[in-house]
């Protein structure tokens, strides 16, 4: 065996290139150590460390975003390759993780659950996502994906006294394992096909995206390749909740603790999309004859399914979950445009993801504040007269939902606009039609939710029989600041895109 090869590989081990991921792991370990060695009177420090540690990292990352990032090429023997989107997505995941931890503080204080493990898992999972979106090798991809997924198994069923949370955890576990198996099977088929020396451009390094891409470009008609690619895409579609792999979404979103729902809705979905983008533009680039119709069909069904099923929901967590399916559909339109080869598409997706992040966390912030101890029972009725009781929260809710619905001048509108332009450039008129129908339907339920908060409902007979809903107290100053910041960013991103937008 030639060990000199290891030397070459070892030369590409640039630990400094993945310092943000290492810092995330460091913060996580620090939280663990603090949990172990701090006296219990000082344990209040732990969330502060988790949040401010990540905020510091975020600050450094954001400052670094402006600097030119030269592509470092494949690192760690082709395991990792940072692309043009990497700096944005790092900031994205750290930001999202910080906000999840922040929401976790008020959630956990209400639930009497172990604290530090929540932050720990969130941080580790986010670090794994940061690696996931940079992985350029199926082994790396699978390992980091599993790190993410296993973390989520625990987080989803974190509220272990709640049957809803446990049920959600079980469903997520079984379907997650199934999707991992499908993904793995697809990877294996691709690996097998690409290692077949009888085929052109076969390679010994057939897990590597670059080598695999070359092989697929040489033999795009090979049935094993096609089946493998479809299976891999299906596996990823599970993660982003696209139809027909969306079956877990409503139950899991409802049962999971609200901050975890936010984490699932934002980070997990974003990671799935980045992986999809890497695959579609990387190894599967030559398969656009397969990926474009397949993903188009999925996108259309996803948009329609998500929006139509969200119409009838009364539980706001399910509304968010099902509307999240619809958002996955819009984003898939962007992915299809990218597969066709539109240069604007990836940036449109990233902008959309950021807009989605700010709007979603604004809404989730309101939800966490309004939820009672029974976190999974959050009905739309709970929002009645919110504008009178808590005008600030009602305003935040309106702007968050407005951005999700895609109403100017909010960030979500610019996101949709960019996606539409990208789809136009790719001449995906059917998809555009579906997206338009979806947007119109979505306005109905988003506004229905807002209407509940703002409009005074005439009293109906039988109203007295309705169970009472929790009446939370006033909003704390920190919560006000955080939500205010999210809202302001949502508005500003709708008005000024200079500097944020890298395209």
């Amino acid at each position, binding site marked *: *065996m030639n*060990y*000199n090869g*290891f*030397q070459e590989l*070892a030369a590409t081990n640039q630990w400094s290139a993945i310092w943000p991921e290492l810092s995330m792991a460091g913060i996580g*370990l620090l939280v*663990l*150590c603090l*949990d*172990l060695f701090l006296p219990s009177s000082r344990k209040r420090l732990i969330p502060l460390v988790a949040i401010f540690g990540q905020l510091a990292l975020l600050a450094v990352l954001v400052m670094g975003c402006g600097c030119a990032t030269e592509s470092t090429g494949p690192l760690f023997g082709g395991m990792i390759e940072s692309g043009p989107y990497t700096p944005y997505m790092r900031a994205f995941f750290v930001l999202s993780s910080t906000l999840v931890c922040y929401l976790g503080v008020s959630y956990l204080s209400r639930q009497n659950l172990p604290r530090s493990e929540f932050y720990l898992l969130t941080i580790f999972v986010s670090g794994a996502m940061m690696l996931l979106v940079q992985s350029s090798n199926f082994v790396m991809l699978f390992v980091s994906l599993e790190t993410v997924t296993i973390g989520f198994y625990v987080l989803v069923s974190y509220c272990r006294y709640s049957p809803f949370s446990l049920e959600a955890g079980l469903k997520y576990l079984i379907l997650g394992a199934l999707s991992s198996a499908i993904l793995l099977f697809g990877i294996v088929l691709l690996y097998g096909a690409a290692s077949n020396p009888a085929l052109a451009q076969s390679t010994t390094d057939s897990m590597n995206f670059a080598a695999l891409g070359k092989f697929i470009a040489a033999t795009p008609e090979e049935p094993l390749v096609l089946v493998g690619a479809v299976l891999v895409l299906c596996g990823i579609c599970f993660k982003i909740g696209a139809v027909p792999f969306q079956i877990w979404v409503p139950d899991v979103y409802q049962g999971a603790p609200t901050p975890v729902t936010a984490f699932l809705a934002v980070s997990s979905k974003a990671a799935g999309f980045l992986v999809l983008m890497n695959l579609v533009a990387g190894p599967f680039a030559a398969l656009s004859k397969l990926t474009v119709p397949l993903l188009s069909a999925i996108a259309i069904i996803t948009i329609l399914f998500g929006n139509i099923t969200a119409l009838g929901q009364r539980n706001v967590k399910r509304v968010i979950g099902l509307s999240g399916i619809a958002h996955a559909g819009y984003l898939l339109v962007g992915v299809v445009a990218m597969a066709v080869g539109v240069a604007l598409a990836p940036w449109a997706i990233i902008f959309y993801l950021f807009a989605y992040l700010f709007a979603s966390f604004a809404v989730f912030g309101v939800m966490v504040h309004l939820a009672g101890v029974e976190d999974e029972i959050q009905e739309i009725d709970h929002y009645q007269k919110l504008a009178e009781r808590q005008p600030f929260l009602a305003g935040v809710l309106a702007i968050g939902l407005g951005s999700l619905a895609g109403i100017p001048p909010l960030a979500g509108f610019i996101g949709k606009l960019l996606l539409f332009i990208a789809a136009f450039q790719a001449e995906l008129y059917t998809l555009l039609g579906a997206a338009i129908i979806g947007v119109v339907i979505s306005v109905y339920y988003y506004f229905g939710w807002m209407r509940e908060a703002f409009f005074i409902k005439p009293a109906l007979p039988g109203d007295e029989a309705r169970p009472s809903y929790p009446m939370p107290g006033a909003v704390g100053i920190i919560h006000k600041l955080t939500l205010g910041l999210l809202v302001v960013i949502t508005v500003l991103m709708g008005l000024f895109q200079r500097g944020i937008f890298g395209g």
Partner: protein
Amino acid sequence: MELVDYLPVMIQLLLAAVIAAAILIASHIFGQRARGNYASDSAYECGMLEESKPHPKFSVKFYVVAMLFILFDIEMVFMIPWVLIYRELLSVGILSVWPIFFFLGVLTLGLVYEMKKKGLEWER
């Protein structure tokens, strides 16, 4: 591969079928005759009445310990390949001992965590 090469598989399949059929037939011929009763007619019959509920409550402690054991056991597996090529890596000048120390460090932290969280205490 020629079809002939699959002959052993074919033989095994046949053998399995023959043995299964033989057992069924033999038990039909030589077995005891008995009236069917509630137990023997139930879905998972083995001829006996059940003694307790099929999902008994059991102490979770054993599972915790067993799970932790498996975790560490598997983590040890990661070290075996490293051990096998450690000398060769050293010969080409790659110092692979620090990463492994880091790995062990994290592992130890996990152990400390377990102990602090009283995962290893039997009497609780």
